[in-house]
């Protein structure tokens, strides 16, 4: 339909800046927010653009770049190895001894080569070495190398025969490192490569990695457990002696077959022993195992030391406690003794003080001339001293001391009398002395 339609011609007088004139806007309707179904390759492209905030042209460019890169990688992985003239001169009849990977130019890949790579390599080699092509370029019509290529492809494309060949592919072997190599210190790398190569025979995948000196104890144990229980598909059929396929000599055929079977078995046993020795050698030199053992021992020792320390501490604590108790008891005893002595002394001091004070009291009345003018009669003296005795008997030593302090130094009779009167009054008021008892000091 479009073919009959054309774009209209420009009307006369139409002009705009840069030949573009925005006029309206497209209808916006917010109700038309809809959800795209997140399905399909085109949605993936949309999501990629939306998430990386790319425009259409940017995305196209980036995608194109990525695709281009992929093609390049493919080219790179293409097989282009220089051909050894010795190899080219090989006799096809001797195919059993040829290195199939080398014939196809895959010696870099070996057991890692994919089926796709083998097919591609085969094609490439055939294009170069096809007998017709050789004839065309004027070389001799010798197709022995072509046959080598065909045989190599035949062996490598069949998974069974390929495994048989891989089993005995010496080029893929990695020799265990010598002591001299190990002295340089890259123990983990060297042994890691050995086990990486051995891992190709494993029936179970993934094979645990050898790791490095930072590997955890579990990883290292898992590694050695795996390898000591290694389940290998390695077979030695490839090295079999040819079984004569003529029907004439059946015995000979059986003999050869038996011989082959025995040889295979023997080689398999040898291979297992070899692997075991490899592991023994490796684990013997593995610093990690030593370290783990030391750590385990250290942990055990640590426990024992801790226990001993705890016991010692308990004993020490008990002794210290006992000593402290004893010291405390002794101290208490001594203190009691001192207290007792001090008490005795104080009592004596008090007694003397009381005596002294009593003397002061008595002296005071004497100083006051027994409160009479002139010479005191014996009766008066008796009465006054009797009162003093009474007062002294009624009051306790502190009050005697207080009274003595008041009286001490007083020489005037009235003052002394006043003090005594006060004291007697206090005692009467306190009910300690009856008024009647006091004869003179009132």
């Amino acid at each position, binding site marked *: 339909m479009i073919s009959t339609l054309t774009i209209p011609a420009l009307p006369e007088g139409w002009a705009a800046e840069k030949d573009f004139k925005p*006029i309206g*806007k497209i209808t916006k309707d917010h109700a038309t927010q809809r*959800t795209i179904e997140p399905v399909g390759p085109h949605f993936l492209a949309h999501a990629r653009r939306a998430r990386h905030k790319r425009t259409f042209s940017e995305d196209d460019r980036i995608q194109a770049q990525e695709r281009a890169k992929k093609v390049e990688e493919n080219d790179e992985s293409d097989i282009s190895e220089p051909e050894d003239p010795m190899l080219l001169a090989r006799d096809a009849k001797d195919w059993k001894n040829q290195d199939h990977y080398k014939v196809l130019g895959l010696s870099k890949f070996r057991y890692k080569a994919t089926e796709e790579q083998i097919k591609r390599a085969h094609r490439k080699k055939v294009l170069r070495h096809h007998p017709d092509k050789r004839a065309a370029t004027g070389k001799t019509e010798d197709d022995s190398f072509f046959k080598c290529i065909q045989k190599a492809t035949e062996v490598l494309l069949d998974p069974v025969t390929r495994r048989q060949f891989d089993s005995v592919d010496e080029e893929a072997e990695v020799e265990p490192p010598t002591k001299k190599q190990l002295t340089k210190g890259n123990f983990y790398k060297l042994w890691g490569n050995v086990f990486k190569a051995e891992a190709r025979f494993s029936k179970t995948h993934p094979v645990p990695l050898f790791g490095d000196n930072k590997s955890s104890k579990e990883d290292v144990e898992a590694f050695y457990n795996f390898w000591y229980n290694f389940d290998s598909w390695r077979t030695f059929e490839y090295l079999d002696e040819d079984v004569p396929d003529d029907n004439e000599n059946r015995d000979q055929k059986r003999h050869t077959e038996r011989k082959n079977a025995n040889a295979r078995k023997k080689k398999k046993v040898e291979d297992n022993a070899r692997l075991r020795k490899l592991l023994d050698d490796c684990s013997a030199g593995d610093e990690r195992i030593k370290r783990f053992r030391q750590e385990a021992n250290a942990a055990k020792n640590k426990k024992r030391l801790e226990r001993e320390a705890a016991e010692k501490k308990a004993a020490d604590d008990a002794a210290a406690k006992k000593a402290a108790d004893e010291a405390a008891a002794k101290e208490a005893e001594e203190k009691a003794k001192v207290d007792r002595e001090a008490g005795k002394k104080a009592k004596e001091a008090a007694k003397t003080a009381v005596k002294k004070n009593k003397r002061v009291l008595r002296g005071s009345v004497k100083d006051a001339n027994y409160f009479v003018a002139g010479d005191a009669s014996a009766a008066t003296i008796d009465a006054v001293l009797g009162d003093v005795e009474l007062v002294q008997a009624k009051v306790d030593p502190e009050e005697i001391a207080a009274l003595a302090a008041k009286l001490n130094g007083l020489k005037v009779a009235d003052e002394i009398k006043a003090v005594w009167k006060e004291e007697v009054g206090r005692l009467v008021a306190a009910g300690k002395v009856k008024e009647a008892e006091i004869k003179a000091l009132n």
Partner: protein
Amino acid sequence: MSDKKVATSPDDRTVIGITFGNSNSSVAHTVDDKAEVIANEDGDRQIPTILSYVDGEEYYGQQAKNFLVRNPKNTAAYFRDFLGKDFKSIDPTHNHASAHPEDANGAVTFTVKDKEGEDAEPSKLSVDEVAARFFRRLVGSASDYLGKKITSAVITVPTNFSDKQKSALIAAATAADVEVLQLISEPVAAALAYDARPDTEVKDKIVVVADLGGTRSDVTVLASRSGMYTVLATAHDYEFHGAALDKVLMDHFAKEFLKKNPKSDPRENARSLAKLKLESESTKKALSIGANASFSVESLADGIDFASTINRLRYEMIARGVFEGITRLVSSVIKKAGLDVLDIDEVILSGGTSHTPRIASNLAAVFPESTAIQSPSTSATAVNPSELQARGAALQASLIEMYEAEDIDQSTHAAVTTVPHITNAIGVVSRSPSGEDVFIPIVQPETAVPTRRTVFVPAPKDGGDVLVRIVEGNTHIKVTQPAPKAAAANGGSRAAKVEDADDSDADESDSEEEEDDDEEKREKVWKIGATVAEAAIRGVKKGGKVEVTINVNADLSVIVTTREVGGKGGVRGVISA
């Protein structure tokens, strides 16, 4: 989407697509970018979603289905739709002849004897557990087929699955040790299965996906815009489905049986009914392939064998109600989407019931001839409708298998998937030889933005300066009335026509009005709307072509780039939003 996932790193993944249906499930994987449906141990590609327990032995698929006759109590079937639902809201109609769903504090459970021994205690299995067990079998057989353990899958779900149902489904798959990469909707999976076929060019089109299953029919209108799908409308029906067709055949044969044996009605005995149903279903399938099918059951009821045949015409007559219901359902969804049958470019029939030729021919009558009806009976290149969804899921799985789970979650996040869609078409005005302005659409309506489209329009014969006028456009249906004389003649003969309309054309019998429309000429016409921008290309060569590229950005601003094909420079302008 889910809380716990069995996360697998992209390198270790083995992915499949799973369609977990209410009646049947299937599993597909991809070989060299082509999807292939995997057959299980029994050689079935459609595996009935049924689990059966006999003496502690678990059976699934067709074997379990056969146990519906002898061991219905310990057979759980039609449980997909119960996932993530309360007991109150489920419809247990289809479980009548198998283990009945039971209420356990609102959760749906089945009580089946799944252990060995005569007096073994029957166990209560939640529907999640049943689904997980079924998944395990499904994935197990796929793993056996591929020789590798399946780690991840894309699973299809109906468009009306709630988030709760989705998480229940993911949980069931996770319990079966399968990482769910993504849940995709069933109609989109079907559309993807068609669009991913090699040498299918990416076109802007409106697609109706009619997913006609065993216990439900879902019809979806999709806008496919440069390979991205947007759902415009959906409808779900639980009345017109495969089981309804089985029912029709069951009644038919039961009546026939009663005629010969008036005393025993096979529908009154559970075992006879199960036999009747099983055989009816295979007769239905046979009728989708051949014009005649036989029906034979040994000891249908009271030990009496029964054999009969039916031809397709008879079947289509007795099942007319169901067929018409499906046609009506499709028409109603198109109306719901605000579209006309003329807007529909493609109808994809998906699901087992779509094998029925009559359904396809009925739909073909409704749609104009330009609409492609993708079903086995109308198109030789159609994909097996039963396999569509599984294929679509497998394709999606192979697309996303190399992404991290987190990446997938981010890409399917609403921020990425919810975008504005333009309402009106954007196009360029061209001139027809008779001098009329004609709209050439560049960007179709309902296209998600950002988007980019290019058209090439020839310049006038003589070349020179041309005007590129960018306008909005709309479609409308132009109805050309027939000549009055013809209408009168039609009216006179209507009575006769209705009588033989029975099995000739379902479209006609839809309504009286439709019948009149038959004579009308209806076509879709573009109407030029408001002008958005104008640009000039000067000095176009004779016989040259003009390339117009329209880039609509996420904010609805438009970049117009136009130039002469092979020419230099060109005009570029921006229309702000």
